[in-house]
């Protein structure tokens, strides 16, 4: 569909069918991957978790499994990358636009962004994926990397 996303989405940072039961748990799992792969500093995970509490990133898509795009300030990022997690059971994130509203989230795109001008294409392809119900359905049933590539290819 869009090659921009696979460019920044590290195959080693894709977690499918996670058992995580809270938003913090899935953020820490994905942030751990990004840190191990050299995308972010060790301060990144705490910074994202803290930011999610005050400036949440849940996106209401009128589905049972919505999307969240946690991220934080560029000072915690070493190089641009994206981690993605799908959840076996949705976890709760607050709505970006209305933090009092809680959303069940089934897909998490954890963004490590440090240069907005160079990462526009990747951001756009994340948005395209989010806005494509078939792509999300495909990701939900993906059980391996080939399935993910077939959807995001």
């Amino acid at each position: 569909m869009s090659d921009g996303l696979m460019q920044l989405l590290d195959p080693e940072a894709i977690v499918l069918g996670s058992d995580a039961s809270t938003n913090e748990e899935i953020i820490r799992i994905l942030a751990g991957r990004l840190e191990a792969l050299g995308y972010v500093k060790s301060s990144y995970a705490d910074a994202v978790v803290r930011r999610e509490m005050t400036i949440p990133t849940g996106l209401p898509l009128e589905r049972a499994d919505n999307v969240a795009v946690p991220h934080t300030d560029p000072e915690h990022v070493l190089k641009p990358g994206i981690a993605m997690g799908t959840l076996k059971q949705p976890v709760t994130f607050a709505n970006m636009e209305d933090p009092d509203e809680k959303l069940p989230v089934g897909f998490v795109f954890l963004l490590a962004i440090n240069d907005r001008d160079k990462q526009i294409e990747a951001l756009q392809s994340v948005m395209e994926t989010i806005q494509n119900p078939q792509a999300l359905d495909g990701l939900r049933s993906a059980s391996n990397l080939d399935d993910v590539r077939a959807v995001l290819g």
Partner: protein
Amino acid sequence: MSKQKTILFACGTGIATSTAVNVAVTEAMKKRGLTFNAQQAKATEVPGLADSVDFIVATTPISASVTKPVIKGLAFLTGIGKDKVLDEIEAQLRK
């Protein structure tokens, strides 16, 4: 149209979300024959910048102290209700 208007795009970090929204609005307005100056900022910076822009498109809540029009930009992330928001933005640009 009178002088080119300035839109301030705001989100939590001023980098990720507001960039996606800025690009989406710029492309959509180009199709409608409209251009504008764009700025991006963190939501917390908006009260200090609002005086120098015409209106704000934000994906996160903005302080009630801001008196410039604030248009909700989440539709550009979710795709839901995008046309209606584009109409609102076009109306502000044509004012």
